[in-house]
């Protein structure tokens, strides 16, 4: 199996207000097609781990390898390119850009990547929205959508560049039961039909229970793993 993401002995400290070790030697790897959830109590370091893995947080010890390439001591511009090309994000809050339409929001990472022409990116964005069942919202302003709709747009945006891995930080944390299930179904569908690799941080046990692999964290360490 091809390893997409690898964490080697990750150690991270928080310095404010006092020095606290939030990650204490985390080791694990994710192979292609994995649908992984990280669970744990508040403050166990699961979000911190995800931000280290996402390349957005560079203040850590140890090594993160994405697609076999170490992210250690890489320039900010290079990391931005990696995020653009290989990682798709879904956050607890949808973080759509209210200045743009839904379609444009989905298109932005694609335009930034500049692999396809603007026309093609637009067509791909439409296609992603259709797949997620929100094609008819494409030309609406992002600010006018409901919470569940926004999160689905955010997933479409995460998918636009066909990323190696999708990372989610509590993607259902801010949604009601019905929408949570809807979003989970989408993730499930992505995993099964498209063999999309996914790493989701959550504290929702129901959500975690339905994923292929559960990593349980406590005090900055991985304490348990279930398949």
């Amino acid at each position, binding site marked *: 199996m091809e390893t997409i993401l690898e964490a080697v002995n990750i150690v991270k400290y928080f310095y404010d207000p006092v020095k606290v070790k939030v990650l204490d030697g985390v080791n694990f790897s994710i192979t292609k097609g994995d649908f992984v959830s990280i669970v744990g109590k508040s403050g166990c370091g699961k979000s911190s781990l995800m*931000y280290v893995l996402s390349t*957005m947080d560079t203040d850590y010890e140890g090594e993160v390898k994405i697609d076999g390439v170490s992210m250690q001591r890489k320039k900010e*511009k290079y990391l931005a390119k990696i995020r653009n090309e290989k990682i798709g994000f879904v956050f607890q809050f949808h*973080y759509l850009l209210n200045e743009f339409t839904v379609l444009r929001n989905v298109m932005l*990472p694609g335009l930034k990547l500049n692999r396809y022409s603007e026309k093609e990116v637009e067509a791909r964005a439409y296609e992603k929205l259709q797949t997620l069942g929100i094609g008819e919202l494409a030309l609406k302003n992002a600010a006018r959508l409901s919470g569940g709709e926004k999160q689905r747009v955010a997933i479409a945006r995460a998918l636009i560049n066909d990323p190696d891995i999708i990372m989610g930080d509590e993607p259902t944390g801010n949604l009601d039961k019905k929408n949570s299930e809807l979003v989970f179904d989408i993730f499930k569908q992505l995993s099964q039909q498209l063999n999309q690799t996914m790493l989701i941080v959550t504290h929702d046990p129901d959500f975690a229970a339905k994923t292929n692999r559960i990593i349980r964290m406590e005090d900055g360490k991985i304490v348990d793993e279930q398949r």
Partner: protein
Amino acid sequence: MKPKLLFNIAQSLLMARWRQTLIAAVGVTFGITMFIALLSFMSGLNDLLDGLVVNRTPHIRLYNDIRPRQHQAVTKWPAYKNDYPIISSLKSGNVRQEIYNSGPIIQDLEQNKQVLGVAPTITAQVFFNDGTVAINGVINGIDVAAERKLFFFDDYIVAGKSSDLNTIPNSIILGKALAEKLVANVGDVVQITTSTGTIFQLKVVGYFQSGLNDFDKAQSYASIQTTQKILGKSSLYITDIRIKLHNINEAPALAKTFGRIYGVDAEDIQTANSQFETGSFVRSLISYAVGITLLIVAGFGIYNILNMMIYEKMDTIAIMKAMGFSGRDVKTIFLVIAIGIGLFGGGTGLLAGYGLSVVINHIPFHTAALPTVKTYPINYNPLFYIIGISFSLITTYLAGWLPARKASKIDPVVIIRGK
């Protein structure tokens, strides 16, 4: 990476906040408008005031000054060769005021490439007889064509035509104040008495008004030929040669050279009127200082609005960074916003500044000093517009730079986690 995308995002952010943007741009517009209008107006006034002096003053004047002879008889006496004589009660000698060889000197000057033009003149002290009253006055014998070309003579003629001095024999143009004293209308004949007692009848063909009433009370103009006739001198008699140069700054050096070559006294404009340059320099300085202050204030406005925009758009910036936009991209976006405001505000400012200048240029402005000036003067120098737009772009760039840098340094993790 397509710059088009960054422009596009910058534009969307701008349009989403178009009211704030407009206010920022209006600040710049106001600054540039005032800068252009103020500078054009001040510079126009400067030119006008400088013109009062410079237009009518020769850059170099050649003449023979009245002074004691340099070589007194005693210094030529061989017996006292090694002594230093002290002569008391020394008097100015009977120096001829006529410039020797004036014809060849004028010819030589006209060949000189640094010289714009040469105007020979004669001054004659006369009395104007009005009934029983004799008014002291001066007749300036002039070469009308040269005077018009070099000293804007026609600008000061308020009645009649200067060319009549050449076409009508024994004609004179009187200072307006003098004409009022003599109750002489255009077409009337005035009688003058020269210092040697000769009486002449001269026909008044016009008035002139210099702006200095005292000057106008005593001065009058006639052609060189008429003046020579009044003085009873030959047609070679010239007392002053007035020179205009291409470059006014060469006057002091050239004055020395001419004085030495032609053996006459030479006075340059800088020596004759040393104060006028200081005045115009200080006035320009003040208008530039005020204009630039306005632009800097506008710059602070832009700085504020961009700063606010960045606080508002923290989430947007964070998510853009998560999506793969680098710090530099974010910085570019905010700089484009700042420069966009500068370009738009500056551009409208240039137009509004031009408009305001035109308006000022149509406000009536009557002054006795300048009979030909009817409205406030404006100098439409393109340089002001170039300075204005460059400065607006530089100010907005600098005002945008700090907030843009701040935006580029935003840590997306802090923002995203903070929720």
